[in-house]
């Protein structure tokens, strides 16, 4: 990937571990005493049926859940987790009044820093939006908006990236292309990707955690052969996807 050294600053990978994570909404316990390991520099995919609590778990790690009081996070290097996380939602969350470029540099402005427009332009070129930096989000297609959101996530240049079903609202072809793009641009970072699509998890994850039950628990851990992004037409992946679906259904 030419020029990637310019847009991707080197970050020492840092792993995250959750110990005894507990979350309840009123009387309903989503999960309790949950242990989760997110290894440094690798992509961990969290799979599970809708409503199992995987997005809540991700929000707890991102510290944006109001119920995150029971959060017990430790980093592999012993440093604080706070300020080392970038978050990408299933909605693009682009601010409609800002241009694509201003959306990508939002983080710097929120922190009162001068935005690095040159780097933002380079990142937009990486995600194929070089000509759209002045466009408003409303002028973009769903796939383009999500690519802008990916550029904004990368612009944060954080060691840990949390992604909550980032490609779920896209059509199949756009989703495959964005999966490849994300895998290339996020290589070497610590990524936790929540998805309900077994094939997506199998394409992108070094490690796949299947979450199910009530209260939810990590029911199984899978480490497929090969490196992500794995080809979508790999028959082995489809076999594994069928097995995961059967597990989720069971």
């Amino acid at each position, binding site marked *: 990937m030419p020029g990637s050294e310019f847009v991707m600053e080197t970050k020492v990978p840092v792993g995250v571990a959750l110990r005894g994570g507990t979350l309840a909404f009123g009387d309903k316990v989503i999960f309790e005493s949950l242990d989760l390991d997110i290894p440094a520099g690798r992509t961990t995919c969290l799979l599970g049926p809708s409503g199992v609590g995987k997005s809540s778990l991700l*929000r707890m790690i991102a*510290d944006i859940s109001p119920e995150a009081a029971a959060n017990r996070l430790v980093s592999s290097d012993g440093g604080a987790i706070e300020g*080392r*996380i970038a*978050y990408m*939602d299933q909605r693009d*969350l682009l601010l409609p009044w800002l241009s694509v470029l201003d959306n990508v540099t939002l983080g710097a*402005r*929120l922190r009162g820093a001068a935005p690095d427009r040159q780097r933002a332009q380079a990142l937009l070129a990486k995600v194929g939006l070089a000509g759209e930096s002045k466009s408003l989000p409303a002028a973009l297609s769903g796939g383009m908006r999500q690519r802008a959101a990916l550029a904004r996530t990368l612009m944060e240049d954080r060691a840990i990236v949390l992604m909550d079903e980032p490609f779920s609202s896209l059509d199949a072809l756009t989703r495959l292309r964005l999966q490849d793009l994300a895998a290339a641009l996020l290589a070497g970072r610590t990524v936790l990707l929540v998805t309900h699509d077994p094939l997506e998890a199998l394409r992108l994850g070094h490690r796949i955690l299947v979450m199910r039950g009530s209260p939810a628990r990590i029911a199984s851990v899978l480490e497929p052969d090969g490196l992500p992004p794995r080809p979508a037409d790999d028959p082995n992946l489809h076999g594994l996807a069928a097995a995961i679906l059967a597990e989720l259904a069971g």
Partner: protein
Amino acid sequence: MTEPITDTMTNKMQSITRGLVSFAILIAAWQALVWGTGVEFFILPGPWLVLHALIANLELVSRHAAITLLEIVLGLLCGCSLGMVSAISLSWFPKVRRWLLPLLVVAQAIPVFALAPVLVLWLGYGLASKVMMASLIIFFPVTTAFLDGLRRTELGWLDLARTMTAGQAGSGRWAALRHIRIPAALPALASGLRVAAAVAPIGAVVGEWVGSSAGLGYLMLHANGRMQIDLLFAALFVLAAMAVTIFFSIDWLLRRLLPWQPDSLPNE
């Protein structure tokens, strides 16, 4: 690209034509009413008489219109600024909001017109009492509309801002207010400003009716007392034209300033 520009121009021409046709129909109906009922000119003068009175008293009407316009513009500036500052303060300080918001709603239940004599007593017959009157009438719709917008910020944007400012010294809350909450609330504020533009002339004229020595409201009362009904209608016509111009100017300006919030109503 030429097609959309042509479409926009055609739409504008159609809009202007519709306005002119509506105006012509209104004038024709007015003349028909005068002719049909045979009403005396000192009860309802016809449009021609009113136009004649307007031309004959153009200097007088213009002088008073300029004062009313100044009252409206100053009232809009003061009322809108106060409303915006109040909404931001109420959104920033939850305790103040809990105490002041119910008080604000109760205060709004008092008819502002009933306060006009008191304002004239306190602030005198000059500009200040009319500006205050217009400000008071504007303040509430602007405050409530803007506060409503500030309260309904997309939570996903705020969550994103929180992850971006986590671990930073200083207030992420202020950054989120400045860069997310306030811009996101601008369409709601625009609704409040449109209401303000529509009611500001009412405030100024009511103030003039209660006690003044200048302005279109004063001119109307004065003409009424002297049975110069054609002049009264001429002043009323200028006031209406002024109010409509102010409203559409503000509406146009707001549409230009908020291009990311297009009108989603069908233009059929």
